[in-house]
């Protein structure tokens, strides 16, 4: 096997030129003969029932071709979302869709529709919904009880006991506890106990590209162009939503302008143009989703209202953590963010005892979905400032308290006593502290220069780092090139290119002789993981390594059959399979491809391994006879949980006269196993930190509580960070030590920088404010100023949601 020469090297991504020259085709850029456009009628109410619809004037409007209503689309049982509904559960939920010759005609037609709604009770704030007599978001109830929806109401005394700015804590639906004697015993051992109200806000994902889709039908097949994070899995999801076999879906998503978790398997709304097209006799229908609509149905991060109590021994060791979180899961599916937040907390602090209680409440706000670092990105910034408070009370260095509690490779953590595949967290903290010069900088904490106060903070974050068991598919064609088929998405992370190199490395191929095949199911893609949850790098370096090994074996076997000798007397490298010790001998890849076609059987893809997925089998079968084909499933051992770790350090300058702050410097160090692509990794990590910092200080949404209507429907008002908001100095490094359960040593990294970035910023601001803890995000200038002027108070109250 050739030595690794691609993993760990910078490359120019294959799609780069197309992206920077504008040649890249995103969903909205596709055109097809006779294409129609659709506009949606969205619910103006947060919860209502459609009483009557009169389409006559709209249908008579010249240029209108078809109108699709909720009665004509699949209506699965709650919590599955229909693509159109007659009982909208949030403002902006699609009611119907008009297809017309252009968008203006479609919009004008929507204005001609007479529609009457019956308003239904609605809930915007989970805590309001939990009050006795409080509104329920659905007619079935207001909270999840397992998989079912039921009613959870707390006694008035719970609210009275909490007081106006305290967290009411009634009985929860889900609860676990670990550690000897439980948290009570843990707190009994503690020398210092801190408790705080904690809060994390909801906000739309807002990828740059919205979830636009264009569809048409030809000969019974659905052709769909859309913007998704994952190709293979979205194709399957679209087919499921339409109740058809995935073989009949031709799925195209070559480029995706970001998803952050909001487009993991595409969106339910993508079937709108598909169904409209069917109704319009197969004419293509383009649905361009606007920023307004992206805000409405483009998914959002679940908000949390909660409370935490932590106990520490004098040496800084956390003896107990009692975490209580109410999750705002929006109007449909149950999210697991509070549970993940608890899991992450149990890993980054490894408390000796821990109790976690949560209740997941439905509100008439946009449906939630995983958003980059789901759970972790809320948990870390909620908890890290509280840990800092404890450190201050203990008179302990804030880096030290994280070192004392942080995990190591030997750690068993959480309620499942989970084992890690690898953990270089101590190395990440040390390396970061060294690069940032923590000891010197933290001494500057609180220094005042005019109205500017220096604050220094760090946050330590973790996230799940990868799945396993997916498939790889390779073809060596008679042109001598290695074609690496990838069913993952191309959402800007480079994973689609980077993980392909695991196969190229195994075969010792020159990167110039490799082609990555991605983005369209018509190109025959393998069963791949979703591009989400920091799993892709881990999952597909494994799968591509596995299929690379399979191809290696096929080449050896083919050479042995063609040229004699045992398979093991052959090696592969530099585009050849050759007799060991004689690199000029053997077959070129081009020759091997020809021979494979001639021989057929397992060489040409006619015979395939038994354990591969049906999608991979179909693709390989479609490619059969075009060259030497290898398909394989990743069966490498994966006996523990894979987690990555990120430590971020930040220095800020807070202007206490204006509440504005400037991030002076940021240093981030990651433990994500072996570095696959240094430049891309640094970009991912730094951008995650920027995203986290943006979330911590400006990115938000606001919903009027009286009307339940969104007020931040534009990026201008939703305020995700701009590049000019970033720090002037970024530093990044990776520990770069291999994970033993990945053949190339890699772990995923997409998620944890977000929580690290937001946590570090909030800790640094809190530090500058002398430890005044605001407990409300985003920490915008108004709040910083209020906290400074009013001893920690914020005008809305600490638990006010959607403000």
């Amino acid at each position, binding site marked *: 096997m050739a030595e690794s020469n691609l993993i760990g090297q910078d490359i120019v991504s294959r799609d780069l030129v197309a992206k920077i020259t504008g040649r890249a085709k995103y969903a909205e850029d596709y055109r097809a003969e006779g294409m129609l456009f659709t506009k949606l009628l969205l619910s103006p109410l947060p919860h209502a029932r459609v009483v009557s619809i009169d389409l006559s004037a709209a249908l008579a409007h010249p240029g209108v071709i078809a109108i699709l209503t909720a009665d004509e689309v699949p209506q699965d049982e709650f919590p599955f979302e229909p693509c159109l509904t007659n009982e909208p559960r949030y403002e902006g939920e699609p009611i119907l869709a008009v297809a017309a010759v252009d968008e*203006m005609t479609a919009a004008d037609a929507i204005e001609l529709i007479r529609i009457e709604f019956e308003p239904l009770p609605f809930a915007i704030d989970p805590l309001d919904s939990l009050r006795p007599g409080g509104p329920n978001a659905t007619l079935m109830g207001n909270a999840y009880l397992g998989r079912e929806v039921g009613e959870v109401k707390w006694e008035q005394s719970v609210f009275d006991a909490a007081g106006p700015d305290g967290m009411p804590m009634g009985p929860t639906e889900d609860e676990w506890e670990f550690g000897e004697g439980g948290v009570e015993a843990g707190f009994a051992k503690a020398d210092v106990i801190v408790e705080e109200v904690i809060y994390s806000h909801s906000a739309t994902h807002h990828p740059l590209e919205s979830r636009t889709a264009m569809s048409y039908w030809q000969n019974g097949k659905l052709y769909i162009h859309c913007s998704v994070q994952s190709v293979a899995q979205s194709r399957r999801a679209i087919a499921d939503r339409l109740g058809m076999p995935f073989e009949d879906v031709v799925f195209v998503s070559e480029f995706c302008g970001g998803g952050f978790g909001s487009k993991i398997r595409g969106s339910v709304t993508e079937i709108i143009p598909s169904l409209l097209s069917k109704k319009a006799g197969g004419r293509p229908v383009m649905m361009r989703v606007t920023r307004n609509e992206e805000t409405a149905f483009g998914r959002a991060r679940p908000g949390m209202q909660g409370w935490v109590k932590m106990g520490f021994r004098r040496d800084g060791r956390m003896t107990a953590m009692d975490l209580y979180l109410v999750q705002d899961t929006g109007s449909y599916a149950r999210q697991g963010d509070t549970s993940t937040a608890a899991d992450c907390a149990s890993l980054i602090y490894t408390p000796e005892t821990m109790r976690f209680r949560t209740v997941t409440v439905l509100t008439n706000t946009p449906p939630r979905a995983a958003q980059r670092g789901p759970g972790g990105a809320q948990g870390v910034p909620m908890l890290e400032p509280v840990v800092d408070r404890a450190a201050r009370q203990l008179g302990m260095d804030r880096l030290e308290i994280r070192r004392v509690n942080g995990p190591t490779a030997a750690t068993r953590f959480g309620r499942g006593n989970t084992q890690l595949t690898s953990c270089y967290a101590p190395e990440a903290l040390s390396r970061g502290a060294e690069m940032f010069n923590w000891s010197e900088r933290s001494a500057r904490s609180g220094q005042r220069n005019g109205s500017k106060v220096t604050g220094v903070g760090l946050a330590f974050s973790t996230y799940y780092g990868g799945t396993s068991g997916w498939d790889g598919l390779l073809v060596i064609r008679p042109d001598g090139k290695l074609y690496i088929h990838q069913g993952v998405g191309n959402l800007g992370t480079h994973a689609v290119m980077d993980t392909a190199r695991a196969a190229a490395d195994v075969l010792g191929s020159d990167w110039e002789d490799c082609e990555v095949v991605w983005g369209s199911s018509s190109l025959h893609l393998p069963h791949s993981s979703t591009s989400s949850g920091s799993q892709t790098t881990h999952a597909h370096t494994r799968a591509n390594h596995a299929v690379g090994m399979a191809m290696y074996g096929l080449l050896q076997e083919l050479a042995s059959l063609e040229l004699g000798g045992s398979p093991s007397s052959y090696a592969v490298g530099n585009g050849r399979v050759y007799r060991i010790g004689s690199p000029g001998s053997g077959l070129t890849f081009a020759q091997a491809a020809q021979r494979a076609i001639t021989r057929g059987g397992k060489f040409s893809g006619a015979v395939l391994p038994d354990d591969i997925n049906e999608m991979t089998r179909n693709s390989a079968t479609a490619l059969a006879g075009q060259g030497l084909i290898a398909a394989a499933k990743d069966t490498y051992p994966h006996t523990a949980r894979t987690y990555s770790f990120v430590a971020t350090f930040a220095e800020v300058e807070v202007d206490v006269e204006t509440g504005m702050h400037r991030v002076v410097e940021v240093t981030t160090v990651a433990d994500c196993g072996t570095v696959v692509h240094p430049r891309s990794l640094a970009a991912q990590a730094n951008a995650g930190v920027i995203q986290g910092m943006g979330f911590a200080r400006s990115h938000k949404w606001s919903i009027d509580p009286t009307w339940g209507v969104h007020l931040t429907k534009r990026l201008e008002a939703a305020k995700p960070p701009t590049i000019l908001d970033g720090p002037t100095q970024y530093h990044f490094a990776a520990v770069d030590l291999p994970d033993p359960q990945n053949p190339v040593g890699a772990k995923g990294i997409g998620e944890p920088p977000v929580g690290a970035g937001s946590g570090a910023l909030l800790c640094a601001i809190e530090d500058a404010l002398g430890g005044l803890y605001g407990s409300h995000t985003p920490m915008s200038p108004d709040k910083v100023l209020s906290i400074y002027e009013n001893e920690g108070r914020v005008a809305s109250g600490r638990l006010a949601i959607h403000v």
Partner: protein
Amino acid sequence: MAIVHDVMPAYELFQPTDVESAITLLREHGDGARILGGGMDTWDWLKDRNKRITALVDLGGIPGLQDIKVTADGIEIGAMVPLSVVARNADVVNSYTVLARAAGRVASPQIRNQGTIGGNVNQDVRCWYYRSGWPCYRAGGNICYANTPQSLNREHAILDANRCVAVSPSDTAPALVALDAKMIVQTRRGVREINAADYFLGPATDIRRTTVLKHGEVLTSIRIPKTWSGAQFYFEKVADRKSWDFPLVNVASAIRMEGGSIADARIVVGAVAARPMRLRKVEDAIRGKAADEATAAVAGELAVRGAVPLRLNGYKVPLMRNLVKRAIRGQEA
């Protein structure tokens, strides 16, 4: 309230080549006509279908409106000069720095290239209820959605509110008021020259307009007299983001020092009311005083006297107070 947004409805586009024709077109099309400057405000309204028009009169093709002219008694900036040009212009930068700084802090680089100074001063108020098309006072209704016990009004007014609590979001308007600029308005009957301080209207006077500009009148240029040329200037904008954001509060000031004390001053605060607020009482109080911390403190307190915060915008009181202090100090701190 439009039921569907984000699609520009049909209207007629006119591209006159002189101001007289523009005025004629506006009069011919009555209330259904609207002026197009850089479009940064207009297109949002139209695309959202929350304001409907029949005719759009584009001033982009009128020669002269995009010129900056140095005159005997100051400088004249055409209404259609892009903000980025104002921010870079050497004469503005050197003599009327406060305007250059204000123009350079508007929105984002892209918006500054497209947006004009005329549009920046004439833009409609910022209130997300109003801009969502809700039928509030300013939209012709009889309610303010931003001033109720539940309203989300972090960005709204603390001064000069009257039923409507929206604010003027302009960064250049306070600077122009501070410079004693004259707004040159062409009407059917001729040319009017209006002091910048009198140009902007609060809701008490007219809840549906932000300036004295009437339908069929065109702001053609802004004259800045030499009065404050080379004075001590200060501009600062506080916003959630460093770019692409409206001010939470901004301040523009011009101070002329004589013999160690303040000979005269203009202090104007934006985003605290529906119009830029010139703080005449503060100006009077600091005249003849040293520009020191004591004067700044007095000025700061005086500035916020009478401020009425709403549910979520109480922070604007200390913020405005602090910005006025900084304006007098002439530096951040």
